[in-house]
């Protein structure tokens, strides 16, 4: 049942949250695992899965990496130090050099883990997640087919106006809030991935990209 979370590489663990939809996760270091993920494992727009621990069953938060930040705790230590001579220049008690990378994770929605379903998930929900993610929860790379399955509207009543099988990005207004200034590029990164994994949706994805780009250009004062 939790195959998806076991079989895909863990790239980070949840460290902090700004809201129900906006989390920070620290990238796995040598200290946490034998194999440290490379930068191309968590690019801008990388889809990830985070387990949602609740008593109501195994659900997973489908999310994307929307920003990164490099943090060096040692940065605070740069400056004049007390002491004298050669000793102080080498003396660093209790401190390990551990600069790390923090990922900004935007939650798009939730889905139920289901091995039998296409992409390993079922019942995608683009609404705001009801429960928080847990501190320390593993952030796992989402395979492309899982990400595509999350955006399909099969099996549910499509909203009025939608054609059968249309992709859905119903989280869009909330994602813009979380991703802030780079929302347009983030949506484009998502639509790029969807274009590669879905068929017959190019026109619709194109209009969405244009709309998002137009809005961003207006907000940034370009237009």
């Amino acid at each position, binding site marked *: 049942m939790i195959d998806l979370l076991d079989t895909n590489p863990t790239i980070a663990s949840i460290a902090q949250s700004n809201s129900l939809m906006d989390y920070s996760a620290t990238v796995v270091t040598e200290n946490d695992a034998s194999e440290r993920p490379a930068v191309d494992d968590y690019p801008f727009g990388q889809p990830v899965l985070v387990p949602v621990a609740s008593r109501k069953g195994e659900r997973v938060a489908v999310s994307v990496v929307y920003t990164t930040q490099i943090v060096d705790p040692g940065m605070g230590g740069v400056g004049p130090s007390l002491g004298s001579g050669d000793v102080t220049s080498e003396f660093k008690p209790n401190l390990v050099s551990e600069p790390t990378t923090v990922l900004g994770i935007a939650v798009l929605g939730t889905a139920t883990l289901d091995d039998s379903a296409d992409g390993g998930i079922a019942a995608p929900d683009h609404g705001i997640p009801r429960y928080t993610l847990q501190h320390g929860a593993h952030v796992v790379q989402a395979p492309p087919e899982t990400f595509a399955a999350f955006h399909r509207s099969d099996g549910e009543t499509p909203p009025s*106006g939608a054609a059968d099988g249309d992709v859905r990005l*119903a989280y869009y207004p909330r994602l813009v809030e979380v991703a802030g200034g780079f929302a347009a590029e983030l949506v484009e990164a998502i639509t790029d991935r969807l274009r590669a994994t879905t068929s017959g949706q190019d026109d619709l994805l194109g209009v969405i990209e244009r709309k998002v780009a137009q809005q961003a250009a207006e907000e940034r004062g370009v237009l």
Partner: protein
Amino acid sequence: MAVDDQRETPITPEALAAEPVLGTVIEPGPEAGAFVFATPDDQQAKTGEFVAYAQPLVGDDGAVERVVFARVAEREQVDTLPTAFMSNPDVAPRRVAAALGVDREDRSLYRITAEVVGYYDEQFESFRNPRQVPTEGTLVRRAPGAMLEVAIPTVTPPHLRDSADPDPGMAHVGRLLNRPDEEVCVELPVNEIAATHLAILASTGSGKSYTASVLLEEMLKPATRASVLVFDPHGEYDSLDQMVDNPVFAGEDGYTPDVVIRDSSDLNVRIADLTFSDLYEVLGPTERMSSVLNDAYQALQRQNGAYSARDLQTTCDQYHPDNDASGLRWRINRNLMQSNFFSTHDRLDLDTLINPGQITVLKMNGLSRRDQQMMAAVLLRKLYQGREAVVTGDPDTVDYSVEHPVFTLFEEAHRFAPDGDSHALDIIRQVNSEGRKFGLGTGLISQRPSKLDQTVLSQCGTQITMQITNPADQQAIRDAVESAGEAVLDELPGLTKGQAVISGDAVNTTVLAKIRGRETEHKAESLAADQLWREAYDEAQSAPSGSRSVESDDPTYEDTELGD
């Protein structure tokens, strides 16, 4: 009194409450007497549609809740989709909206500006202005058809009519536009139309003679049995004779309408019916001749009877034996004696032309414009004098007394009452301004309102206006038609064939209507030029051609020869 027979009024707040709610009032509108309501329904609140709401109004009887009617004037979608959603015509914007999590069905919302028409006052049989707009939150509903059918025509509502009263003659001209077919009848009181005159204004091809025919059909039905005279310069009303055999027009007492079609060869004007001004127009005399003519005319008038052109010549000679009249004699000979149109005896006896239940169509297509005007002037004068004499109780003063009201219809009215010089203009003006008193009504049909005499047009109390795109014509309607509000004028270019704006005395408020289908065939369709050309070409091809050589080796020619 048959009070027991009286049904209850259909216009009650309770009856209105049974209708589904269309929207909710937001605020007063931009102009006095207007208000704005919100509705998610884009189908029901079309421009020109009647809506209604219940409102307590303080009157003589204290606060009474009344049904107030209003008309949708403008509509505006509140939350339109961003233009970028339309960037690819192959992708419906609603698909984009749905993909981005916006459900249009839930969000579409319209701001509708409506103008208060008023509440229906049964005592006055008309709308009265409540002088206040609905408060915010008032529920607005579509005005029920049963209420509109009572409130729109300017007649006593059916539930208040004494059963002993004759039914008012109602002309069912069509249905209310915007409503599903057959829902709301538009009926016009024939009395009002005949008394206050009618104008049918429309561009070519938008159905003006069709509409007139519908009205004529209604006037000739057993319930009305009108006496109608049609001046028809194009011969478009021939098919009305189908009414005679149509059971729709048959009365229980054996009545069938009498349809008399008079060809132009059958039309003439009696010389004795011409006024001096008419003679002046026909003969075009010089100043000297004019004096001779006047003397002769006065002398003949004193004789008080029919006279011929020769009589006129002779009388001229009598009064001016010194050959002053020789030029005039020549003119009388040329213009009156040699004309088939002017005659000594009358072939247009009013007794044969106007009778109750009879429509007479004067096909004037063979006559010159001057003769058309002359004939209209002569006939209208006779009718006017005949009616005036009967109504004022002095029928012996005229040759013809006309015992019943008469409705006259002028097709291509700008020929008879143009904005300029016409022989018929004075009498048409007179009939339009005073005919009401004497039961003489006119209907003017024109495709060029701007070419019509504005006084005449402004005296037409009821207007049926159809599609008009020409700005000059729109301006003419704006200037001349009092009851044509801006809303009506805005509708004119957008109307399609058979759709009309009905305004004026016959209706309590301007309505948009779809004219009903005719019972008789319609003849005024445009000619199918392409078909006629093909036929003419084929005919020319099949006929032996004198210009071709006999030795021609053209096989078609040979065939033709053989065929012959």
